[in-house]
């Protein structure tokens, strides 16, 4: 394992990827809030991250598995309106806020990881 090929950075970048993908799905749900017959779609964030991380740990480096896009499915258990649409405005806006903060957290962690590397490169000098 080299200095730059570090598991924390790999995990964070996967988490950022998934968060961005989830944001696209949430935005699509919000955009279609008045489309008759539309069903809300989402990804199982925890499960997808787990899968991405475990396949990355595999020494064989199953690239196909790691690069496979997240499984998008319709959200179960939402109440359908008479027009066949089941987008729940509270769920979507809540998740959108949560997703945004999660993205922010991941970016902050990634930055701190990079600044630590930078410190190591500079040998702790104050320049």
């Amino acid at each position: 394992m080299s200095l730059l090929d570090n598991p924390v950075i790999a995990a964070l970048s996967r988490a950022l990827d998934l968060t961005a993908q989830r944001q696209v799905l949430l935005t699509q749900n919000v955009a279609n809030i008045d489309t008759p017959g539309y069903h809300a779609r989402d990804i199982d964030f925890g499960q997808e991250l787990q899968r991405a991380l475990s396949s990355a740990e595999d020494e064989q480096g199953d690239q196909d598995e790691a690069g496979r896009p997240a499984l998008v499915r319709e959200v179960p258990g939402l109440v359908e309106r008479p027009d066949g649409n089941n987008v729940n405005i509270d769920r979507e806006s809540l998740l959108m806020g949560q997703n945004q903060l999660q993205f922010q957290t991941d970016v902050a962690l990634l930055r701190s990881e990079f600044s630590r590397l930078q410190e190591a490169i500079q040998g702790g000098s104050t320049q």
Partner: protein
Amino acid sequence: MSLFSLFQISGSALNAERQRAEVATSNLANAETTRTAEGGPYKRHMLTFNSQPASQFHLLLADSLGGGNTPPRGGVRVGSVVEDNTPPLQRYEPGHPDADADGYVSYPAINPVQEMVDLMGAERSYELNASAVQAAKQMIQQSLQILK
């Protein structure tokens, strides 16, 4: 699918909701219109919304990248503007220039309360999508912070 596609998706919804508000406003404005270019009273208009398929570019890109399990979908699109064919309301006003032989005037079958509710719904949906744009902007700005 990048974060930039968020703008396209939310933009389509903003456009659709604005058109919905325009139609509701025009219905309200013409609630008493008894004369139109086509003849007869004004007819109430309605919009239909369709879920928009992804652009050809996005589909091709997804294909060349190994293909997702579901094709990326876009935002929303106004399908068509349809006329409400509810028969006009008849009001007895013999002195009105548009009154028929029996003294009845045909007024559009428009319920102002219904239009107001529709207008409010469009406004709220517009707000929600505008905040989704804000969220997208913030996320992109944050990811630029990684470079600094």
